[in-house]
């Protein structure tokens, strides 16, 4: 039997105006990043409800990353400022509960930063992969 190489599952929430476009640009420029990263498009990073993040973990995601416009560049002027507060508190809480802090991240990626998107994802996947499977937060029923 072949032992399957461990590949983490990463959910990336990307805001439509900057980061999703940044991811598109990474594609346009053929900048590779691991296929484990699956992007969900949201209008703004402030649309990301902590529930979505926990749900992802519950269903077996090994890492969740939220990407939005750089502070000051939000298409909706202030959405990412709320994201910044919410996620700072949420991530701190997850850490408080003993969840590895490397499993969560917020990164500001502009529409022009295709390269940053790719490096960020490479780096994030590598970090999460080194932690191994997400055991502390998953719902065992949902395991493949």
């Amino acid at each position, binding site marked *: 039997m072949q032992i399957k190489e461990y590949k983490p599952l990463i959910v990336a929430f990307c805001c439509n105006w900057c980061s999703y476009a940044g991811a598109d640009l990474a*594609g346009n420029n*053929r900048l590779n990043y691991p296929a484990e990263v699956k992007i*969900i498009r949201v209008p703004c990073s*402030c649309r*990301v409800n902590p*529930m979505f993040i926990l749900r992802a973990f519950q269903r077996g995601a090994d890492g969740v990353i939220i990407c939005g416009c750089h502070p000051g560049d939000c298409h*909706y*002027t202030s959405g990412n400022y709320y994201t910044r507060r919410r996620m700072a508190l949420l991530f701190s809480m997850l850490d408080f509960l003993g969840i590895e802090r490397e499993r969560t991240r917020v990164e500001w990626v502009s529409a022009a930063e295709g390269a940053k998107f790719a490096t960020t994802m490479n780096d994030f996947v590598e970090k999460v992969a080194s932690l191994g499977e997400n055991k502390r937060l998953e719902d065992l029923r949902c395991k*493949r």
Partner: protein
Amino acid sequence: MQRIGVFVCWCGSNIAATVDVQAVAQALKNEPGVVFSTDYQYMCSQAGQDMIKEAVAEHNLTGIVVCSCSPRMHEATFRKTAAAAGLNPYMVEIANIREQCSWVHKDIPTGTEKAIILGKAAVAKVNLNTPLTPGESPVTKRALVIGGGIAGIQTALDIADAGFPVDIVETKPTIGGKMAQLDKTFPTLDCAACILTPKMVDVAQNDKIRIFSYSEVEEVSGFVGNFDVKIKKRARYVKEDLCTGCGACVEKCPMKKVPNEFNLGMDNRPAIYIPFAQAVPKVATIDPNACNMLKNGKCGLCARVCTAGAIDYTQKDEIIEEKYGAIVVATGFNPISMDKFDEFAYSQSKDVITSLEFERLTNAAGPTAGKLVRPSDGEHPHTIVFVQCVGSRCENCAEKGKEYCSKICCMYTAKHAMLVRDKYPDIETYVFYIDVRTPGKNFDEFYRRAVEEYGVKYVKGMVGKVSPEGKKLKVQASDLLNNKQLNIDADLVVLAAAIEPDKSARPLATMLTASMDTNDFFTEAHPKLRPVESPTAGVFLSGACQGPKDIPETVSQAGAAASKVIGLLAKDKLTGNPCIASSDENMCNGCSSCERVCPYGAITYVDKEFRMPDRTTKVRRVAQVNPAVCQGCGACTVACPSGAMDLRGFASNQIIAEVDAICK
């Protein structure tokens, strides 16, 4: 249950080279709700779109998933296709298997596996999609222009020209703005008054335009197409409808020692005044801080000499409420204070002046009737030093200057130096510059003429110190090209002060919920593609409130803003983006969290009566989203603890479905 059709695009080899498109189509066939699945070379082509339309008809589809390039590319295309096939356009979802899959992954198994998961997520989402219809709101066909300088004037004229009524609100007693204070304009050297005052008269005579001078905007509520604005008309103690502008009061007023702000304090005016001869409206205004009658009830001379009976010492500030469909900000600029740059001795010598003061000093209607003399002693200057970039391009901007280039100084300084040399060839003129920036039609030619034909001495370098000594101003400067330190005995030093947005802009931006940059310039909706619109719908930008601009640029931007306003006012109804927030009244607590995070002020509260299960009624405060104002960011949906607030098109259960599909 939806009946979903899945359409997998090859994009030639763009997708097909790394993703086994047939396998994707095959895999998605088994997803819940999917009744049809196929692949094609170019889905966006006419043939591809026809394929979708036929499938909709044939399989009675209710939803469509297109696995193709980024939705930023062709979402609109496929929505149109759906609409043409009789589906609601918002029943389409795109799985991005090109930019975010085939182009970034190398081998076919990986690409195919991911493409299938992305397709599944899109299918999961479409299963929960509901048809969306954009909301509509009416448009009040009247525009408000805030600021009556050349930007505001031009915008108002253009809007009125299209047949829409316009109101101009101007804080000063007259419209005209900075341009009215200028002498000549570059690069053609037309006299500013000659080209501006006819426009001011046009404004006064246009029956579509109302001018609220000596007034300010007090409060703004509402939204695009439906703004409610309160305008405070300050008491000028003169009845505008009666005053004929004859000037008898101005002549007779005994209080003549008030610094004249129109001439930047270089001469005095009476307590009752008309800023300048061509003022519009040509109506006198009493300065309440200077008028003896208003201060202590002693005088009343102006009332006695006024044959029209226009003087009214009891006049009070008046609040005017009006509805507007669009608002144009044209609040303009001011030179920055020179207080923090006293190495140039601005506060130590009257003969160190700013460029705007220089304009007044050379203006035929200015304090010296256009005769260029030293302000300190009225003598003819022999050497004039112009210093550029004072306060512009400063790194330590927080305390002193501005980080940006003020853009207009290079050209007006060339103009000043040239005009001096033209009129007074005996005067030596030096211009100290860091760079001469002259991008603009006929601009560089103009600057070269100043140097080559008029003999203006341009020195690359900066002035380090100006020392008033006796009657002279000792100017110590560097000449970088000759690697020398220069010491010039000047009679007049003119500082090209950086310009900054008018102080009224910041509170106005708050009222309008329009965003600003760190320098207090209004931000445009898009720096290249939407340069005259604010991100706040229905608010437009004209002139230097958006960034430093010269007159030609201001006028063209003013016209552009006007055309945007006309485009808006020409509509009877506005159709919005249907992907907006909406609140479930049965779950809403009325806690105000959503209202506080809404960047657009789209959320209001109403008390609503609810029937309870026990047949009693209960009145509760619930949130309502104004569909015309909401832009669909979703900030409120997370702020809402009860989950009453959701975002159409990106509903919580849709996103959770995507998460589940990806994590499954």
